[in-house]
């Protein structure tokens, strides 16, 4: 049993930590010379792109590096005791009781064959030897603390009976069961929807205050870190490059990488035409191919030959701010306030004629209650309910919504992978709602193409990149012979700014961003008129996102393509779209110009969505709206308005109208429509969710 003697010093002190993984060929240094201190009750954020070593630090603290990983230098002190020197038994006592960890995938952290209650009760029974009764009481308390409804029923259920958000709350509850001094959260909300994420973030913040737990919060999302943490540490390629209080680092950054990172994320005010994002040039170095001197050197605007690439660069403590440090030799010389060199701003493309018109589209699925014999009651899943909208040439229409809102079904119907139940889709003047893809002619197929979400899945791993593009050309009947198609394929590679040599590479030799570019090239192979981009950048690192987004915009401008941009990330939507359509449970709840949708009056759901998205800007003030509960199942939607179960304005509608009927689509302003019962004067009283504080 862990002794719980009070301890005043820092909870966690990491000094010059280096961690390496040993493979057959070489030693791969994952973390180098990493130092940080977490005081009691403090929340420390670790931020960086994938592969920068942030998770390795967490695993190092847990002393769980696997067979190949080893701490090769430095110390990790937890409450003054060196974790590196502890025996396995001592570590076992600490883990799960004094240090608890929460992982990204909640389902992977829960035992699917054990009831929630049993799993929670195990913690105090093992670590503190409590009786079953005491443990049950404690479990009940903690489940209430993580704001789960009906705790007693929760304890009796199995993990698969809960939704993703509820599962993650249970995992947090499990971590809190032993009242740990240090909580490590490794991307705890990445697998969740934004509104659910907002709930979890709110919870974590509250718990830190209530239990006085110190936290190590690992994330790639700067906005999330801003909302949850007191201090942060920016990591790049295995090293901490800048560390300090949130306010110091966000508003007074002293490292070129931090600066570049902030310039590549779409903050309010960025605009695809006037103020485009600035992508970080080059690629993340592989761990065994790091440059000498500064790791960020080759991608840095302030790089100085002979100085930045001479020796390893130490962390330099700054004289202002609280424990603010940077790993840059030139921080004193750089003018941090200089405005960025604006990448050539472009003309706003003129929006042309309507190319796609969708009228009253419905898509229902019939699901047999008993799958084995096909008998029994049939249930109808209303995946898309009376969708009406149109898209014009050269226009970017963003489709926003959380998982289960029907945006993927819409894409499927549009592509012809499913046929519509009712309604009409007009492509040009041709109705295509009932033509499955096999019956569409080549022109129609090549006109509507798709860019997929997961870069690691979008290319066939056993075919060369060139071959896959050529195949698309063959199918679209472009080019008379192999040589012509090869030439066209090379041109397409130029279009997405990939070297022509990539034609003969296998997909596994490409990075995520490069694969996504090939995916874009493939979609544009047949001069597509309409491209459905299903979260094309959400799986990419921040610095790559900007480059891929800009590429899409550039191609769109040149080819006059209509882009249907499916996303849940409102920051990027605000940055690049001309019009926005918000979907919830198969319904379009709001449709309008980007300006109209992002400013009041809102649909209540849009309002909550806007509030949920974390924004990495300290000057932003947000209204705090957290939605209760989860998205209802499409199998069993609520009566009346689909959003009524979570709506905070429901009481403002007289006569329980929300429970009874689905609101009609109302036009508020020219081209701005919402599906809500709220009266005009209430709508007009709505305040903007995001306010930029006066400087």
């Amino acid at each position, binding site marked *: 049993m862990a002794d719980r003697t009070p301890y005043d010093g820092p909870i966690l002190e990491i000094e010059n930590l280096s961690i390496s993984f040993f493979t057959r060929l070489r030693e791969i240094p994952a973390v180098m010379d990493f130092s940080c201190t977490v005081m009691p009750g403090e929340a420390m954020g670790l931020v960086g792109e994938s592969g920068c070593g942030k998770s390795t630090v967490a695993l190092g603290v847990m002393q769980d590096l696997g067979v190949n990983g080893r701490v090769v230098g430095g110390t990790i002190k937890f409450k003054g005791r060196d974790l590196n020197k502890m025996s396995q038994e001592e570590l076992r006592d600490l883990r799960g009781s004094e240090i608890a960890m929460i992982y990204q995938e909640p389902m992977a952290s829960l035992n699917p064959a054990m009831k929630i209650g049993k799993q929670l009760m195990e913690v105090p029974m093992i670590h503190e030897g409590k009786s079953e009764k005491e443990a049950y009481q404690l479990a009940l308390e903690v489940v209430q603390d993580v704001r789960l409804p009906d705790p007693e029923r929760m304890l009796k259920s199995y993990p698969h009976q809960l939704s993703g958000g509820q599962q993650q709350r249970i995992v947090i509850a499990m971590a809190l069961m032993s009242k740990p001094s240090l909580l490590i959260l490794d991307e705890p909300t990445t697998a969740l929807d934004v509104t659910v994420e907002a709930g979890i973030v709110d919870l974590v913040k509250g718990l830190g205050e209530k239990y006085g737990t110190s936290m190590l919060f690992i994330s790639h999302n700067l906005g999330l870190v801003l909302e949850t943490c007191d201090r942060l540490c920016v990591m790049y390629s295995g090293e901490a490059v800048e560390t300090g209080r949130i306010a110091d680092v966000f508003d007074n950054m002293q490292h070129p990488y931090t600066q570049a990172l902030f310039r590549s994320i779409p903050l309010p005010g960025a605009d695809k035409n006037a103020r485009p994002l600035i992508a970080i040039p080059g690629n993340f170095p592989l761990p065994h191919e790091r440059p000498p001197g500064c790791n960020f050197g080759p991608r840095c605007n302030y790089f100085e030959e002979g100085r930045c690439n001479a020796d390893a660069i130490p962390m330099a403590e700054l004289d202002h701010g609280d424990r603010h440090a940077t790993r840059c030799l030139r921080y004193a010389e750089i003018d941090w306030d200089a405005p960025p060199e604006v990448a050539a701003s472009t003309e706003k493309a003129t929006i042309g004629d309507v190319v796609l018109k969708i009228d009253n589209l419905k898509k229902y699925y019939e699901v047999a209650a008993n799958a084995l014999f096909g008998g029994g009651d049939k249930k109808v899943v209303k995946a898309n309910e009376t969708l009406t909208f149109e898209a014009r040439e050269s226009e970017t229409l963003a489709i926003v919504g959380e998982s289960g809102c029907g945006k993927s079904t819409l894409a499927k119907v549009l592509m012809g992978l499913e046929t519509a139940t009712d309604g009409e889709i007009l492509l040009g003047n041709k109705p295509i709602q009932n033509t499955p893809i096999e019956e569409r002619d080549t022109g129609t197929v090549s006109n509507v*193409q798709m860019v997929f979400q997961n870069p690691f899945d*979008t*290319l066939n791993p056993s075919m060369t990149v060139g071959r896959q593009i050529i195949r*698309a050309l063959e199918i679209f009947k472009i080019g008379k012979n192999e040589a012509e198609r090869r030439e066209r394929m090379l041109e397409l590679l130029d279009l997405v700014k990939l070297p022509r040599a990539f034609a003969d590479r296998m997909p596994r030799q490409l990075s995520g961003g490069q694969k996504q570019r090939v995916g874009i090239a493939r979609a544009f192979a047949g001069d597509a008129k309409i491209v459905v981009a299903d979260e094309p950048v959400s799986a990419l690192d921040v610095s790559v996102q900007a480059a891929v987004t800009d590429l899409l915009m550039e191609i769109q401008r040149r080819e006059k393509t209509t882009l249907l941009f499916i996303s849940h990330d409102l920051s990027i939507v605000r940055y690049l779209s001309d019009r926005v359509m918000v979907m919830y449970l198969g319904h379009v709840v709001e449709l309008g110009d980007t300006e109209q949708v992002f400013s009041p009056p809102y649909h209540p759901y849009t309002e909550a969505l806007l509030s949920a998205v974390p924004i990495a800007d300290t000057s932003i003030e947000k209204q705090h709206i957290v939605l209760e509960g989860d998205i209802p199942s499409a199998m069993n939607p609520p009566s009346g308005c689909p959003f009524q179960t979570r709506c905070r304005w429901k009481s403002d509608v007289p006569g329980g109208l929300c429970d009874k009927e689905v609101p009609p689509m109302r036009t508020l302003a020219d081209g701005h429509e919402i599906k809500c019962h709220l009266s005009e004067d209430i709508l007009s009283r709505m305040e903007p969710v995001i306010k930029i504080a006066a400087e």
Partner: protein
Amino acid sequence: MDLLTWTGQFGSFLNPLILASVVIFLAGFFTNFVLTVAGVRPGELEIQGDGTMAINSTPADYALATMKYAVLLFVLCCIGYIIGGLVLPTMEQKGIFGAVGQRFLPVWIALIVTFALSITFKRRLGLYGKLFDSLIGMIGFGLVMFWVFSAIFASLVAPFDALDQISSMRNEVPGTPTPEGEAFSHYLFGGDRLGRDVFSRMVLGSTYVLQIAPLATLFAFMVGITLGLPAGYIGGKLDTVLTFVANLVLAFPVILLFYLLVTPEIVQAGVPQYMSMVLFLFPIIFLVVLFNSRYHTQPTIRNVLVGIAAVVGFWLYFSLISDRANLDSAVRFWPESVDLFNIPGNLLIVFVSVVFVNSPTVFRIVRGITLDVKTRDYVAAAQTRGEGPWYIMLWEILPNARGPLIVDFCLRIGYTTILLGTLGFFGLGLSPESPDWGSTINEGRRLLTVYPHPALPPALALMSLVLGLNLLADGLREESLKD
């Protein structure tokens, strides 16, 4: 002439050494066992302050090292026997092991060349090259290739023919000299009940096993893939029906099925031949669909490839199933002038049964992988550009299912080999005098208590081949997971 000793002249000093290696190995094993029970762990790698690493050895490490060296010594002694067989002049000096080693000379040369070439170029050879990074994989590959080369060079290795009988050599023990004027001076592994050379029959038997097993497995894979892909990809009623049929076949006792297939009435009725007509159609369908789906956008290339596949495929197909010369045959329409070959009836039965029994399992594996792979975005990408279902199945899904399939292929050749042995053992299928390992074991079984030597060599050969295939599959699986 005298009876040969097992180890010959080198035995006088190699025998004590090999015995010592066994004793040391056992001693090391028990020490390690006791130490582990007592709680001593092998030493761990530690990083020292100056950037170097050190292993702090414990007694358990030393015990493990001792075992390793004992195995090495054992292997060296075995190589010593073979070298003895190659360099010493007379049969008496070579001993049985030496002489056997010498008979296998072509096999050794081929093995050394294969390994030398493969290891030199292993970085360029993809998964096959990676195999040479794993000791297990190399041992497995070595064992398999040993029997493959034995089958290829069987006529060079085997001193006698499979059916040569020397009446005075009946049931003679290993190393017995043959009478003057015979093809070879000794029966190295003795003679069987009819006075035939056990060693020669073992070597010649490998030809049968290695011809039928891989080919039958390949056919089973063709059937399994051609049915499994649509079952997994299209799903629905088709899947339900196919899976049900596969379950039916799997639920039927295999041996009973074999007995049924060789029952004279059933053979008379032509059931095996009709079955072969259906089963052998699958490879042709597979190839035609494969080429058509890939090249349907370029009709010229498509027509040439599909044409070649269809003509060659159907020629082989009709040659295979039709037998005009045999009056009992159920299918006799293919003119003899273009009939390339005829398969003996019982060989066909063995082949059909093995394919029939193996394909449902392959079907299930392929169906399972397809269900997983079809959810990938590249499959959706193919769908959204209007590819046909067969292109998606054969060119998008199948290549990405190859990993588990290659491993299963190796394992399945092993099962098929055992199945062939079982068939031979029950006297089903191949003719009783055939030298295949199953029949030979069955033959030797009758006098097993008195003369164990005729049954043991084929049994050990079967064991080593299957062991080799399993190790090879393990090695492939292990290496394909690494990067």
